[in-house]
């Protein structure tokens, strides 16, 4: 028989809830209802296709976003890989360079004044905080070999090499990112230096076989690092850039009295119809304007000689450069096709745009802020932001055709 607990007399055994317990329940109800409140991350947007989960871009100044002899955050975000990444809906951190730039871009094509003025530093270094990873690995000045090595003969490391890559090579950083997709646009600098110097020989360009070997090694390593696909962009025909001015254009300018009286243009620069070879001779801007025109404007005698193989590209050199680029592209296209990668040759696009009159044959000296037209920046070599949009759309088409993806085109630029 149970002994009654003195603390619980019979009268208190009625089913009665003590007051403190009621208070406790009252306190607990709001606690319980509010206690499970997980915070959540904003749902990440999925890439346009799993193929684009991690996209990296390798290349040179064009891919880096170099324009008008300079580069800064503004020019960097206009570059085609940034536009592509936006269409892919994939993260694409870039190595932002602080304004006014490194170096600051030219803002006047004739005076060569740079952004920030004469007192601006030559290089304003990287912006902070520097991202942990960058996906645009391109370095201005890089040739094909530079993707594999920063050291040794034939490489072209400059200050930006360290500022962008921080002591590694493009391919090393790409491998570390384990990309699912890559774009590679390299090879322009394997011929461009020769073109701009006006001396195009086998000794001043990269041998096509060597370029193909290095390029293939880059793609091999990207695939080994996990790339399931990519796009190879063909080497640009450097003879199409408006920095290289046809000799005939100088001849016509002289005939129209547009050049100073002390500026002489040789008969060899005349068009073929006038007994010269001027249409087929290309005069680097640095020589025709930077040297000769400046000398003439200073009152000194200056003569443009369209047979001077050390200063201008004579027809044989132009042919050699075009054949070299064609050889490069033949090898790169074959390799891309063999791997199942997309291939985009930019040269038909630029030829078509030139045919439309969008690339002036002679610098538009009346408009120093658009010296080379809407498609080229003020150095006459690097594409403008508008041209990057057109390139991006060309790449979009090539990628969609190869992989069956549905990347949307970039909004095309407003062109005259």
């Amino acid at each position, binding site marked *: 028989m149970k002994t009654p607990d003195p603390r619980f007399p019979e009268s208190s055994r009625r089913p009665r809830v003590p007051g403190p317990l009621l208070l406790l329940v009252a306190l607990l109800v709001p606690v319980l209802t509010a206690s499970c409140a997980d915070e959540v991350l904003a749902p990440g947007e999925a890439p346009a296709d799993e193929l684009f989960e991690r996209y990296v871009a390798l290349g040179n100044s064009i891919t880096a976003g170099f324009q008008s002899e300079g580069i800064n955050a503004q020019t960097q975000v206009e570059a085609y890989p940034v536009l592509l990444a936006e269409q892919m809906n994939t993260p694409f951190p870039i190595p932002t360079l602080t304004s006014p730039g490194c170096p600051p871009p030219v803002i006047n094509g004739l005076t060569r004044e740079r952004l920030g003025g004469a007192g601006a530093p030559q290089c304003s270094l990287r912006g902070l905080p520097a991202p942990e990873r960058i996906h645009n690995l391109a370095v201005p000045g890089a040739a094909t070999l530079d993707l594999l090595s920063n050291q040794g003969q034939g490489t072209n490391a400059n*200050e930006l090499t360290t500022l962008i890559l921080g002591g590694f090579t493009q391919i090393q950083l790409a491998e570390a990112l384990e990309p699912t997709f890559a774009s590679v646009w390299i090879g322009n600098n394997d011929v461009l230096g020769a073109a701009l110097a006006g001396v195009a020989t086998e000794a001043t360009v990269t041998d096509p076989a060597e370029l193909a070997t290095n390029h293939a090694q880059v793609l091999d390593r990207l695939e080994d690092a996990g790339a399931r696909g990519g796009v190879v962009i063909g080497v640009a025909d450097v003879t199409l850039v408006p920095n290289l001015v046809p000799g005939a254009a100088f001849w016509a300018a002289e005939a129209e009295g547009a050049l100073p009286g002390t500026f002489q243009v040789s008969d060899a620069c005349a068009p073929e119809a006038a007994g010269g070879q001027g249409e087929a001779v290309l005069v680097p801007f640095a020589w025709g304007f930077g040297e000769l025109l400046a000398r003439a404007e200073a009152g000194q005698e200056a003569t443009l000689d369209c047979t001077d193989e050390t200063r201008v590209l004579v027809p044989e050199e132009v042919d050699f450069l075009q054949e070299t680029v064609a050889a490069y592209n033949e090898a790169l296209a074959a390799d891309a096709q063999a791997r199942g990668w997309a291939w985009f040759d930019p040269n038909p696009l630029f030829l078509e745009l030139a045919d439309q009159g969008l690339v002036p044959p002679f610098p538009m000296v009346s408009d120093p802020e658009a010296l080379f037209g809407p498609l080229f920046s003020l150095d006459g070599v690097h594409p403008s932001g508008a041209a990057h949009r057109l390139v991006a759309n060309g790449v979009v088409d090539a990628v969609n055709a190869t992989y069956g993806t549905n990347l949307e085109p970039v909004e095309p630029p407003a062109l005259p």
Partner: protein
Amino acid sequence: MASSSHEPARSRVTHLLRLAVFAVAATLLLFGPRAGPASGPAALSAQGFGVYEQGACAMARAGASVARPCADGSALFFNPAALTGTGVHDTPTGWTFGAGGTLIAVSGGFQPADGAPRTELDNDPIPVPHFFVRKGLGENLAAGLGVYVPYGLSSRWPAEFDGAFSGFDNGLESIYIQPTLAWEPRSGLSIGGGPVVVVGGVELNQRLDLSEQRVGQGDDPDLTFGQLGIPRGTPFGEVRLEGSGATGFGAHVGLRAHLGDRVELGLRYLTEVGLDYEGDARFTQVETGRTLAPNNPFGLPGGTPLDLVLQQAVFGSDGLLVDQGVTTAADMPAQAVAGLAVDVRPGLTVHSDLQWTGWSSFDEIELEFENPELNETIVQNYDDTWAIRVGAEARVAPDWTVSAGYLHNTAAAPAETVTPLLPESDRNHITLGAGWQFRDGVRVDAAYQRLMQNDRTGRTRSSDGLTGGPPTTDLNNGLYDFGAHLLGLSLSVEVR
């Protein structure tokens, strides 16, 4: 005192004392070489880095024990006043030995907001011991000694984790030693308290980010490696900060009152204790594997290994990062608890506690090195926290009790300082357990506790590098999740 034994009384006491010694020894063995005051356990299971599991019996009822602590000596922590009076220790002149520990197995991780791979916490199960002894000194007086760890922290992350730049293997323990006297001035009202001596140790292992390091050359004294192309998150060294033997003093007081036959009230207050740590900072170089290209902005020859430059310039005998002394300080927060115990019906008691902890005292950690250039202030800006604990204990057989409980606590870390050091959020816990008095005066309790923390956005870095500035949620870059399973075991021996 009833006894089922036919042994002479003295022999039985000797046997029980042996059992008590065994209990302490078993605790130390059970909870391994890291356990015990000398080696310092570390854990976090209450708000902030508080540890509230100071006895399996109380743990089983969610720690709600201030009004009527368990009879295992843990009253030294849960309410010093309860060492005397009725309802807890009913042995006016006897001894009570209690010892045990809690094994805390945590899990959790960090999911970066940018979709990068998740990082998992790398903690091993963490043991937290406690030991209490209580001696009745008469009908209304008792004394005791407690050794427990109310504050402890262990967070271990992979060294490759971005949060390793805040700390990847961090520990803090504060061992409280508390002699206590309790007195019942009149029937149904008891008070108690005593000084606490706190012995603390701290360890912080941190990776050093080269991108945040000043170059120390050129015209700009603030020029960093990051501006020269070294990406954020480039480890070039590690520092191990270790301080031990910090001693602080405080007090712990309690009050307990019977409000009628069925309700008891308890209050306790543990003061804030400041600890000043002195220790060593040991630096080791981590290879970056980077080689400078020609024409680099450092003005060094192409092909120069960056690690060689750093070894000579930074880690060399004249460099900034040489082993040296370091000091820091931390305040262990005050605690105030009020609670009720209600006998709902015979054999069933409901306990409830409301707890305040003064975490706002933990506002920043100042690290002062021998070389003041390295001095660093880690801003925490913690908030005071509240916890509500509810538990019920039922006697289901003469020798058996079962308990269950629930507790909720708010987070100490504000939204802008949720870091790898303490990726904290509001927490909910459920508990259950059982106690078995397997022979007269000898009781074993076991408890299980599931800690469920709300997921919370936070960041991987304690600061934003050299730019300084106040903490801001703008730096939050991902989501922390955290949870734990806790297993408590206590043995108590009462010698009448």
